[in-house]
């Protein structure tokens, strides 16, 4: 598991692929655990906001970047719930539109990391031997950079942009998925049903795809949920440094950076976008926790 910026949480094999009673447990957890409920709610709001931004935003044009110099730096009021920024843009609209790049980047990074990491990890775990050894050395290498540093360096070198930052994050993220997939594959390699499949002459790619991937899907999904939040936090951090999104992208981290110069007086410019990053990450982390509890009854409390 990874949290924060790639710090392992629990070893992959701690998540037992379980199916029985999952639905019941999900319901119970949601009912019992307000944190999980909150997490689901945040995810729901986040997806909804990203999808419906043009309709939700009070001023969609300004959300996309249109300026209104006459209405600069207005404090929050009924007309502008989150106030306006240095260029007179409605901050609520900006924050709402900010959900789009955040979601896009989170999905893109996690998907890329999964697409690269999982097949490699599965092959390594299934075959073992030299291939496994090689993959482990390579992942070791990637994981011996302090978290985020590799991504920072790649972005700085390629030139600051959202696309480069997403690529860079994916590059530093895939090893975690490779390890996760490898762990699951290894634990299943000797399972009776896999042996049976082998005996019946099912070809290796089919075994990997049909039997092992199916069992690996759930832990990967949990991992992806937690990681989505972490990616949003990471990309916000890079944007804040000036290494990721560039204006006029409605990026939350960038908005915090823009509001920094006047945070004491025009506090709303930096506060609300930062709050959006925080709440989204928090929600996804809580949801990931809850999902883990559901999947792994041992860790349930």
């Amino acid at each position, binding site marked *: 598991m990874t949290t924060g910026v790639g710090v392992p949480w629990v070893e992959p094999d701690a998540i037992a692929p379980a199916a029985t009673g999952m639905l019941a447990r999900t319901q119970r957890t949601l009912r019992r655990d307000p944190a999980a409920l909150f997490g689901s709610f945040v995810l729901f709001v986040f997806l909804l906001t990203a999808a419906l931004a043009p309709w939700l935003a009070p001023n969609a044009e300004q959300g996309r970047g249109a*300026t209104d*110099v006459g209405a600069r730096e207005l404090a929050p009021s009924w007309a502008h719930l989150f106030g306006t920024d240095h260029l007179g843009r409605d901050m609520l609209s900006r924050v709402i539109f900010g959900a789009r790049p955040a979601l896009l980047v989170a999905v893109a990074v996690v998907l890329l990391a999964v697409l690269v990491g999982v097949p490699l990890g599965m092959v390594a775990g299934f075959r073992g031997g030299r291939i496994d050894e090689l993959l482990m050395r390579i992942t070791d290498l990637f994981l011996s950079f302090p978290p985020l540093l590799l991504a920072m360096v790649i972005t700085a070198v390629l030139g*600051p942009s959202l696309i480069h930052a997403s690529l860079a994050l994916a590059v530093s993220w895939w090893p975690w998925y490779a390890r996760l997939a490898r762990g699951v594959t290894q634990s299943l390699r000797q399972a009776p049903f896999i042996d049976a499949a082998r005996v019946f002459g099912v070809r290796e790619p089919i075994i990997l795809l049909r039997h092992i991937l199916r069992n690996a899907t759930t832990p990967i999904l949990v991992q992806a949920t937690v990681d989505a939040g972490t990616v949003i936090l990471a990309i916000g951090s890079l944007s804040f440094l000036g290494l990721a999104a560039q204006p006029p992208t409605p990026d939350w981290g960038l908005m915090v950076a823009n509001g920094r110069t006047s945070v004491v*007086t025009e506090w709303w410019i930096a506060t609300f976008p930062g709050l959006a990053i925080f709440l989204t990450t928090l929600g996804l982390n809580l949801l990931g926790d809850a999902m883990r509890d559901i999947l792994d009854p041992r860790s349930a409390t």
Partner: protein
Amino acid sequence: MRGRFRFGLSVVILTAALAAATAGWTASGERHASLQLLRVSSTAAVTTWDPIASFSTEVFYMANVYEPLIWATQTRKGKTTFTPGLASTWSHNGDSTRWTFHLRKGVTFHNGDPVTSADVKASIEAAADHGGASFIWSALKSVVTPDASTVIINASAPARIDLVASSEYDAWIVCKSALEAAAKDSKYWASGRECGTGPYMLKSYTAGTQVVLAGYQKYWRGLKGHFQNVVVQITPEAITQQQMLTSGQIDLAFYPPSENLKKLVASGKFTKTVAPTSETYVAFFNTTRAPLDNKTVRQALSWAMPYANIVKVGAYGLGTQSRGPVPKGIFPWSKTTPQYHQNLAKARKLLARAGHQGGKFTLNLTYAAENQAEARFAPLIKDAFKKVGVKVNLKAILFNQQWAQAKADPTKAQDIFLLLYWPTYSDAGADNLWSLFHSSKKPFFNLSYWKSETYDKLVDDGAAITGSNEAAAQSKYNQAMRMLYNEAPGAYLFDARVALLVPKGLTARGVMNINYPFVAFFYNVKKKG
């Protein structure tokens, strides 16, 4: 010259807090009788301590440590005049090819050596040979020293040596012994050495963090009534400087964000004065391909440009709209150069005449990501052009990369390039006209890639006669600038200005000088009365 400052607009703020500093001192129980420390914060990084190679932001410190033969200053009417530096008097022959400087007597370098004509000769020859701005000495033929206090500079053609000798770069007089030592040891200056005559000596340098200057007690103008020590905290973040200022950690900040200017003035602790700078913002139109190869389209976009809002937002209201690429107050700026003003109807009409009814084309605009002023006003250009049907894609990249891409292949480069530019030395405007729009084989700073033989000739002729006949040169330049208006290879956005917040109880007359961009003369920070 083009700056990579994160904050294009220069604002200097002085606050009191001297008393507070002294109080803090006493509180720690360690008293010092003659304590006088000016605490400054600046974005100015040191790229070298070599006064000859220096061609960057370290001039902020150099100008307090070294002195030139003569200083350039601005009269109230905006004309450049000269005041004595290490030379007390100077003169030139009729055609400006032979300039004689008489050195002030009794001046010593910080190492104790007296200043002689040999030091001056060595400094000028080193600057002309391997200076960072050695091109300013291109007219130099020879330096002759008839006696220890006379220097004769011979030029190969009529030249304004006074402008060169008062330049911000490569005009500092350095002791000969240090120059000789540096010639033998390429790392001589690296450790933070100096050998100047200025009011302050370099006491210590912590790379990238802090510069400490100590007053030179034998300074020829005296140090009584001036700050005895100066500490400069190098802070790349302007917001940090403002915080240090408001919390009383520093007395004087260089380039804090000016959006907070009004609030700081409103606090009642400061009086504000506004002074011009030599920084100017230009938007280059890529003239090598459609649609910007069409003069009428460029004119249309010049009419569509939101100048007033750019000044309001990009310069926090502190700039003035430019007349051509030469900033006001610098030769050959002229009030006869016409200006565009935002007029969307006219812009639409011109676009239609050029065959672009309703706009309907897209342009790529690049600007320096680290320039906050550009980051702020670039979206305004996008919005304004949208109103005449022209779509603008904004792209922020680091200046180095932006510039590298722009120089590589004009036909594949950006459509619009935002540039912050300031001239190298006092004759200045000529440099702006030449560097920004004179044609060249390979693009350098002419990022409109515009080529006009007529323009080139006007600028070349102007430069050739500036030394001998300034009025005639001005008229050539006026014609050149009118051409830039009509042909519109670029839009001339605004000249930046500086706000100086002087705390009650201090005066700062002469701390800023338009001829020395990015310099603060600490010597001129004084107590009132």
